[in-house]
């Protein structure tokens, strides 16, 4: 892909100036580029936002980060998939608005936990909207509580340092792929090729029909106890360590879309985040082996 990075960063300004997000918030980058890609594709985005950081970030009534150019509907925690489906059905079937793309922009708390049944139901019905999972691996908006996306060994306010999260993160990518949805991808905004990977995936998803799911991993400095300036680096290391492989599921087949040039040990990713400060050597070894195993699975699946 011959796309230049600088114009991407320069042009993705639809949400400027400012929003309510914390400094270094990974999901701000995702939303901002997402809006830019959709508008550049000539589509009108319509955002459904369940209770999450973005309920706050979109601004206090009557101000809005969309500056009355982009629609955000702040909906209930558990029903964003159903509500996105309603918009998609009425825009598509009654109003014949092919130019409007409904985007459910949902955190991991809703996706993995309270709205999990709803996500599964929308996937099963193949409802026609784009689901962006904003995964920061805990209930960050309410103050860093454990969710179904919290990884093994992470400290949160409800899995405190004396008893960090036991058990692994729910594997939402495989779960949703088993629903035979038309498109699923993972993305995180690390290095230049990773940003390009994100653009390619969103552009593809925008023009597809049915339930499209993009899982974005977004560092959260207050929740991950990381430095704001490390957000992009941590995203990059998530991919380079294979903790978060960049993959795609399309027409029933898996594909690794970005193979790291150099693989790094998981410790490089973990040490930039104080939430993992309590890990023992044994814990790290477990994370390494389970990371390798999962990546191997993607490699095998990609060969098919």
């Amino acid at each position, binding site marked *: 892909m011959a796309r230049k990075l600088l114009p991407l960063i320069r042009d993705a300004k639809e949400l400027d100036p400012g929003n309510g997000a914390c400094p270094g918030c990974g999901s701000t980058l995702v939303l901002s580029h997402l809006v830019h890609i959709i508008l550049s594709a000539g589509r*009108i985005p319509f955002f459904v936002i369940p209770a999450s950081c973005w309920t706050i970030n979109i601004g206090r009534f009557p101000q809005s980060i*969309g500056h009355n150019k982009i*629609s*955000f509907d*702040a*909906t209930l925690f558990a029903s964003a998939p159903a509500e996105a489906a*309603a918009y998609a059905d009425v825009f598509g079937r*009654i109003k014949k608005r092919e130019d409007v793309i409904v985007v459910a922009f949902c955190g991991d708390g809703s996706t993995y936990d309270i709205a999990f049944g*709803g996500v599964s139901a929308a996937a099963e019905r193949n409802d026609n909207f784009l689901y962006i999972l904003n995964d920061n691996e805990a209930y960050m908006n309410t103050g860093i509580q454990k969710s179904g996306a919290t990884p093994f060994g992470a400290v949160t306010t409800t899995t405190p340092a004396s008893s960090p999260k036991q058990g692994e993160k729910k594997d939402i990518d495989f779960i949703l792929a088993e629903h035979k949805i038309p498109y699923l991808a993972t993305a995180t905004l690390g290095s230049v090729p990773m940003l390009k990977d994100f653009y390619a995936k969103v552009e593809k998803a925008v023009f597809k029909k049915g339930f499209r799911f993009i899982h974005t991993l977004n560092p959260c400095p207050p929740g991950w106890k990381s430095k704001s300036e490390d957000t992009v680096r941590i995203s990059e290391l998530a991919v380079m360590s294979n903790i978060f492989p960049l993959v795609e599921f399309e027409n029933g087949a898996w594909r690794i879309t970005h193979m790291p040039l150099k693989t790094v040990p998981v410790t490089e990713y973990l040490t930039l985040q104080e939430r993992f400060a309590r890990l023992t050597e044994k814990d790290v070894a477990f994370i390494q082996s389970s990371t390798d195993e999962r990546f191997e699975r993607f490699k095998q699946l990609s060969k098919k």
Partner: protein
Amino acid sequence: MKKELPEGRTVVATGNEAAAYAALLSRVQVIPAYPITPQTVVVERLAEMTAGDEHIIYKNMESEHAMLGYASRASKLGMRVFTATSSQGLLYADEQLHRIGRERIPMVIAVANRSVAAPLNLGPDLNDSMSKRDCGCLQFYCSNVQEILDTIILGFKVAEKVLLPAMINYEGFILSHAASGFEIPSQATVDRFLPAFSPPKEWIIDPDRPRSYSQIPAAPAYARFQLEVERAMNRAREVIEKEAREFSKIFGREKVGLLEITGNRNAKIGMVAVGSIGDTAKCLVKNNDLLLMRIHTFRPFPATELRRALKNVKKIAVIDRATSFGGTAPLAAEVIAAAGPRVRGFIAGIGGCNVTETTLENIIRKLDTAKPDRPTWIIEEN
């Protein structure tokens, strides 16, 4: 398809079927559905009758919570929306109910009332809907099958005029499953009464007029939104009376507005009831010197009308088919607020226990001895 709709005829059918016919006669555009006993026949009939219809979205949802979420968004896009539920389903959707009231979603929800767990029970009482009295939904209670059909059509008209959801309640099995004769009006008659849904432009969500919705406001702005719900409820009192008169004129039926008053206006004893018990109580009026008030709309509650009508009554029996543990039952609480210490509260028909003419006659006999400060429970053995 619509051609199966037996419009303009008198038929023998159940309350659930009447509800389904009423929704279609109201030209609903979106029907999200989820099954629960005893409501199921409503969504089954609607599925059959809308299959293949490109102008109606019938959507099977994964829960009542999702169902009302779907319903509210479709309504905000200017669609006329209908759905139905019962009991646990209504309770499961609680969060959405409070939201659709406060967000001013003028949809109609038919509720085939059923008692609530625990223990699990299928019989009818009004604890499901009465416990939702504070959510900002208009609440109508039907006393017969004809009224279910009529009130759904009336409900859309009122809901859309005041921008509030309307919950049309009818007791499960007693009204949902028992077949009776009723008249299905012609589509043309319904169209004359109920024009197409056309909410204010600024109320509709329009992607061409982008903005943020349901954002967090400052406390005074939040409070003003709540006050608007209260005002809409109060406005609904007049709208219900006016539209019920209009309905009666167009459909040639007796007017049923906020409440129905029968019996001797100068009687010393009054009775206030709701739903099918109100219908049973009508039989008493013939042989007893009694003033009967059957409440049709519980929200908004017709306190002024009730107070005026009960002016000369010495003692008032209120029959609740619902409870408020540790307090006054929902209907009695309203009547006490309107009519003061002459009121005696009775709780009957819980979980589907029989409430017959004899039950009600016994209640009248107990009026003098009933305690004023707590409800008297009546549990009839089958």
